[in-house]
């Protein structure tokens, strides 16, 4: 408890004094406190400040909260380490540091919140501080648009949570987290929670803010937002799901939303050429995978299979931690790449592995972890989820079993597409020849250290977590043995192959020298997948050609445009926005009147009010 308090105080000090060192210290303190806390089975409950009776700032930390606090603090520590150097490129350094401290603190306190009031308060603080951070480069038009979009979505999320918490209060009569236990059926409550947390987590179809906000914000902030902020929404969903009487269709809804998000997230990521946009879509994918675990937990609990329910929950929680680690690693490395190349378009990069070998290696580790390749941590959590799905027969309900099997195959498709996407990303950014003239340099050591710690965590968790999980009764393969044997034999063959090598230019089909224009581009790479999934992308090609001759054989010049359908934007967001505009313009005409009209409004309003009062009195 003292450690937590010290950590929070230090973080607050960091915000006030704009000190980077205090941030680091605070993260360490809280990570340590949460780590110690996890090993003991106890809870902390305390009230800090009571505004009016019933509304108070309170803290309630149990193991679930401690797990998320550990995740947030550990990732924030690495990100802060990276930021020590990274933020030097910005003008208002002090402001960035303060805001970042407030942001981290609000995330921690949201997770630690002891009642729904403080949860909502810190949730809103988190939303506001992250909004200011997204808007940090506000002189850019796109950033302003992204910031506004993010602001609207995040306020929508708060609105739904507000509805949910009001309902919760009216059902139970308490705001305190530990006392909330609900017996009656609560469809509206669940839907409000699902939408509220779904928006923040970035579940499709509420995902649209992620690919806008992540590219716009500074990279360390993207790392925090994608790595840990969307996990706070996962925490919220879990926290309330565990105390509500879950029904089967809740689980199916969560599982379905998760599967759709996972698959569509990665499919959209494949056609994305903005490196940070690509990573944002992968956040949607991974949140989908986490949701699948949560949905499975509800389903298996409903059918009373506690072992599999626990396995799904373990998969969801472990993937939450893993995604926080490798996604922030990827955002940090991508941040350095974007900073030195001054572009986010991966079609203009290439060959960076020679100028920045360490960044490339770290990005590769992140890419392999997110693709779920052994022996990294992403593999273990996906394996848990796969194993839970493989045991679908335990539910003894044919229809549900088939649903789970279909989800299983879609999960496999997702994970294979993710691997394809990261081959594309790594290949286009780091390999072959540079596609544009760049003066790049390797990241400085504090940045590399921050990234390196994250990468190390990915490797260690991948290799040693199966040992821990097996001690809890799971049957996972021994990754320590597999990893060791792999490393040993790779080294053996590498040393064997090293002798007698010669360097020569790549064969260019008889051309004298190779140019970057001969290389495959990111668009070219993903073209077969776009063709196969053309029903989802709905690509449209507009070709206009001019010819020298009348019979149209000799082309003078041509122009081709490719468009991919933005399904949710065109069919969900725009209709809602347009409807809002139509209603607003109807109401707007009421305002365009003279004095007499306004007096009439007041008169009508007064009459209605009187009648209403008279009716109910």
């Amino acid at each position, binding site marked *: 408890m003292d450690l937590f308090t010290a950590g929070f105080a230090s973080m607050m000090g960091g915000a006030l004094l704009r000190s980077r060192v205090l941030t680091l210290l605070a993260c360490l303190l809280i990570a340590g406190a949460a780590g110690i806390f996890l090993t003991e089975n106890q809870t902390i409950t305390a009230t800090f400040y009571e505004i009016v009776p019933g509304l108070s700032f309170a803290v309630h930390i149990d193991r679930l909260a401690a797990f998320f606090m550990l995740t947030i603090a550990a990732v924030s520590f690495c990100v802060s380490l990276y930021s020590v150097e990274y933020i030097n490129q910005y003008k208002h350094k002090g402001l960035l540091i303060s805001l970042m401290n407030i942001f981290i603190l609000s995330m921690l306190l949201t997770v630690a919140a002891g009642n729904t009031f403080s949860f909502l308060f810190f949730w809103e603080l988190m939303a506001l501080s992250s909004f200011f951070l997204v808007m940090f480069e506000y002189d850019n038009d796109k950033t302003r648009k992204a910031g506004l979009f993010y602001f609207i979505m995040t306020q929508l999320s708060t609105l739904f949570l507000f509805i949910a918490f009001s309902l919760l209060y009216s059902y139970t009569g308490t705001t305190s987290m530990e006392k909330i236990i609900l017996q009656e059926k609560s469809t509206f409550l669940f839907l409000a929670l699902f939408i509220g947390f779904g928006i923040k987590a970035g579940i499709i179809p509420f995902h649209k803010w992620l690919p806008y906000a992540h590219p716009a914000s500074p990279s360390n902030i993207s790392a925090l937002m994608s790595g840990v902020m969307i996990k706070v929404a996962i925490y919220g969903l879990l926290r309330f799901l565990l105390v509500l009487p879950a029904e089967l269709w809740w689980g199916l809804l969560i599982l379905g939303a998760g599967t759709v998000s996972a698959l569509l997230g990665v499919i959209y990521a494949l056609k994305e050429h903005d490196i940070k946009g690509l990573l944002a879509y992968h956040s949607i994918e991974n949140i989908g995978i986490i949701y699948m675990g949560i949905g499975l937990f509800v389903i298996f609990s409903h059918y009373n299979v506690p072992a599999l329910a626990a396995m799904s929950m373990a998969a969801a929680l472990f993937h939450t931690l893993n995604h926080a680690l490798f996604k922030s690693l990827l955002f940090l490395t991508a941040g350095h790449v974007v900073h030195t190349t001054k572009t986010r378009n991966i079609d203009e990069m290439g060959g960076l592995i020679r100028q920045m070998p360490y960044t490339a290696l770290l990005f590769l580790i992140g890419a392999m972890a997110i693709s779920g390749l052994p022996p990294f941590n992403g593999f273990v959590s996906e394996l848990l989820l796969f194993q839970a799905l*493989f045991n679908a027969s335990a539910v003894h309900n044919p229809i549900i079993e088939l649903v789970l099997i279909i989800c299983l195959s879609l999960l*496999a498709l997702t994970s294979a597409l993710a691997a394809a996407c990261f081959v594309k990303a790594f290949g286009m950014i780091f390999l072959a020849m540079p596609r544009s003239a760049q003066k790049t340099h390797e990241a400085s050591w504090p940045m590399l250290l921050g990234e390196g710690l994250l990468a190390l965590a990915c490797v260690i968790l991948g290799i040693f977590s199966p040992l821990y999980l097996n001690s809890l009764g799971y049957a996972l393969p021994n990754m320590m043995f597999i990893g060791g*044997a*792999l490393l040993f034999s790779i*080294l053996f063959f590498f040393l064997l192959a090293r002798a007698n090598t010669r*360097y020569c230019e790549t064969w260019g089909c008889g051309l004298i020298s190779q140019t970057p224009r001969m290389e*495959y581009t990111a668009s*070219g790479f993903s073209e077969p997948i776009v063709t*196969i999934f053309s029903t989802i992308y709905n690509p449209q090609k507009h070709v206009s050609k001019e010819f020298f001759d009348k019979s149209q054989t000799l082309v003078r010049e041509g122009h081709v445009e490719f468009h991919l359908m933005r399904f949710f934007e065109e069919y969900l967001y725009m209709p809602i926005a347009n409807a809002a505009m139509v209603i607003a313009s109807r109401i707007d005409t009421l305002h365009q009147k003279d004095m007499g009209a306004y007096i009439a409004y007041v008169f009508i309003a007064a009459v209605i009010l009187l009648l209403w009062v008279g009716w109910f009195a």
Partner: protein
Amino acid sequence: MIALLNILVAVLISPLFMTFIKKVKAWAQRRQGPPLLQGYYTFMKLLKKETVLSTNSSWIMRWAAPINLAVMIIAALFIPIVGIGGSGNILLFLYLLALAKFFMALAGLDAGSTFGGMGSSREMTISAVIEPVTVIVFAALAYVLGTMDIHRMALAVLANGPQAALVLISMSLFIILIVETARVPVDNPETHLELTMVHEAMILEQSGKNLAFMELAHAIKQTLLMGLLMSVLFPYGLATETTLVALVFGIGAFIVKGLCISFFVGLFESSMAKSRLFLLPNLFMLAYFFSFLTILFEVFA
């Protein structure tokens, strides 16, 4: 002991199966074909040659071939080749293959040649589309045999005898074998024509020892998938105990069974033409259908 022997036999026998398929294809075209030991000769020749690396390439290129071979050798632990022994989580096996493919595709992009990029792009596309099929096939296996361990699956088949469902699954496994080993109609191992290349395009920039490793890894992968198919369809002959007789019989049985499958693969390849890349999902849907049907039977039985 059995596990080590599994690896050893898989490594040693793989080039033979590779060449035998070529031989069968040659016979189908009324040619004589290469000598049966050609695979070994080529491997030895490549080992002696110098490795030429592109000046544009990076350490990815140098590590890709060793990683591929090492991964395949570790993956051989998971498949009962000669006998049953060792751990064999079927999903880890699948992901080890994915790991090898990941690095192969990166190496394809590394030299910056158009061929390599084309190969990587196509390979990752095919592997993405076949993945749900593979997982469904594995899920069907786990459903029918009640375990996720390949060695235990073989034991279960040995104990319970053949089942109709396993024949259906075997058809899907055969399609996976064809796809994963880059054979007609998915890919054409014979050609170096850019229209048809997938796997060959990716390893076009490999040479010398690296090429030798890549080719050996590819051959081992084929042997492993054959081993998987056999342990589901016809696991008889696998050594379940470490006696000399059982092991020798296991090796002999494996060679005979492997040659049978190779013969069938050769005939299959000869009877088909390379299909268009974008028609491939149809073939995969067929495999998906077979295994989904199996699961349907199991669920509603």
